[in-house]
């Protein structure tokens, strides 16, 4: 039974609620994602996107509902390195004295011994991951000296090195250059073919149409969820953004 479940859903969130000291951030949210699916998470600031991510990674506890990752609990997903989180550029201290290599190596920490001594396989995984995001020339560059796009790629490499089957990306396209954007979209296609599941939050409506098979519109709870072509309608978007017309969000031509 377990294996059937595993085959079916990478992420299963049922009626989850999160509150911070009695203040509700997210309620009755549902999400089901299969291997190889890319899902866009769309909502206003404060609509609960980051909270949703936090619940899936176990960074905050849910007060109600159930989360299954590959059919198992969030805790065992943490132990198995199943989920990788790629933070927003604003979410990290980019003055931290740490190099690209060190950041990517952090993707391996969960599967290392207590002293976090890299084995040959860890070194190889880190080298490969850095190569895939095209940062081999910047191995020992401090992250403070990178551009926004390079920094984003560094954290993507960390997720790759972690060999996670689920990727959660917080605003992967914000503040990146064209080259990085192209590289990220190529990686998305590769991840999809590898059977990884991707959940990404974004403000950019065009990216949703371009990359996402599915879309989850939220405003404290799920407004709409389904195939992008069916669900990503002007009416639903307007509801999600509290009555602002999609013309205003997209620009008039769309």
């Amino acid at each position, binding site marked *: 039974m377990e294996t059937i479940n595993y085959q079916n859903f990478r992420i299963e969130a049922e009626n989850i609620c999160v509150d911070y*000291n009695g203040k509700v951030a997210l309620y009755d949210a549902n999400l089901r994602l299969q291997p190889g699916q890319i899902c866009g998470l769309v909502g206003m600031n404060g609509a609960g996107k980051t909270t949703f991510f*936090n619940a899936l*990674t*176990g*960074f905050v506890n849910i007060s109600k509902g159930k989360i299954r990752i590959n059919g198992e609990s969030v*805790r065992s997903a*943490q*132990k*198995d*390195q199943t*989920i*990788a*989180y790629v*933070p927003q550029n604003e*979410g*990290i*201290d980019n003055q*931290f*004295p*740490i*190099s690209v290599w*060190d950041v990517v190596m*952090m*993707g391996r*920490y*969960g599967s290392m011994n*207590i*002293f*976090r001594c890299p084995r040959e396989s860890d070194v190889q995984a880190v080298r490969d991951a850095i190569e895939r995001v095209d940062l081999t020339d910047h191995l020992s560059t*401090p992250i*403070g*000296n990178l551009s926004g796009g390079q920094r984003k790629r560094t954290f993507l490499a*960390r997720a790759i090195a*972690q060999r996670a089957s689920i990727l959660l990306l917080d605003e992967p396209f914000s503040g990146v250059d064209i080259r990085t954007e192209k590289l990220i979209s190529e990686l998305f296609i590769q991840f999809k073919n590898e059977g990884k599941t991707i959940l990404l939050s974004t403000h950019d409506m065009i990216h949703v149409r371009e990359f996402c098979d599915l879309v989850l519109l939220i405003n404290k709870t799920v407004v709409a969820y389904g195939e992008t072509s069916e669900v990503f309608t002007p009416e639903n978007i307007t509801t999600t953004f509290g009555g602002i017309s999609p013309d205003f969000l997209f620009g008039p031509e769309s």
Partner: protein
Amino acid sequence: MELCSFLTLDSFITDPLTHDFMRKALLMSSLVAAVCGFLSSYLTLKGWALMGDAVSHSVMPGVVVAYALGLPFSLGAFIFGVGSVALIGFIKQKSRVKEDTVIGLVFTGFFALGIVLVSKIKSNIDLHSILFGSPLGISLSDVKQTIFISLLVVILLSIFRKDLMLYCFDPRHAKTVGINVFFLHYLLLTCLSLAAVVGLQSVGIILVVAMLITPGATAYLLTDKFDNMTVISVLSAIISSLIGIYVSFWFDLETGGSIVLAQTFIFLFAFLFAPRYGIFKLKKLFAGYK
């Protein structure tokens, strides 16, 4: 009176070493400086300077109570240090008062309690040595305690060096890959309390926070590599301690204050002349001459 004897550098350095209390002070203060310097890298990167201030002041009543009860004063200090942090967390969660206000409120409360207790409990507690440190008058039992605590902190920090770095840098990732963030949080707090306890012997409760933040801040200006930062932080802390003690010996100055002033001067030097992050960017100046 001894002015002529430090005309040569040699005697400036060696003369104090003939005194037993000076050898002990130099050794103990270097050890304490190394421990605080090590921890300092983490505290400055985590942004816990204020927390360091809070914990170091809050240990005061613990020290007094432990003295009165005849317990090792590190035990009392440790309990009150960790207790203050727990209390800060509790008040912050249960009220609408902002965190920095809560921190300020709690640690001054504890500190005041300590001062009142000293005046009430008639004992041989020397308020001056708690407040301002007395590295020149460390007793044998204090030496043992200091060595034990210092080793404990150094071992803990060494084992969890990389995890603590990850915790300071990106706790969300740490949690996501199954690393026990709760444990690391309290480990860092425990080390902070213990470091405050040993630090207060050198420079006293009021200035111990300097031992916990200045070396880290200095190192932060000088490097972009975490490991180097730790090394620079430890070295600058030890050098400041040595300078402080020597200067206080020759010029008859308050030792704790001298140590912290030495740290401050080293920081100022880095602030002005650090190769990349200093105001004058020494690297560029040199490049101009090539």
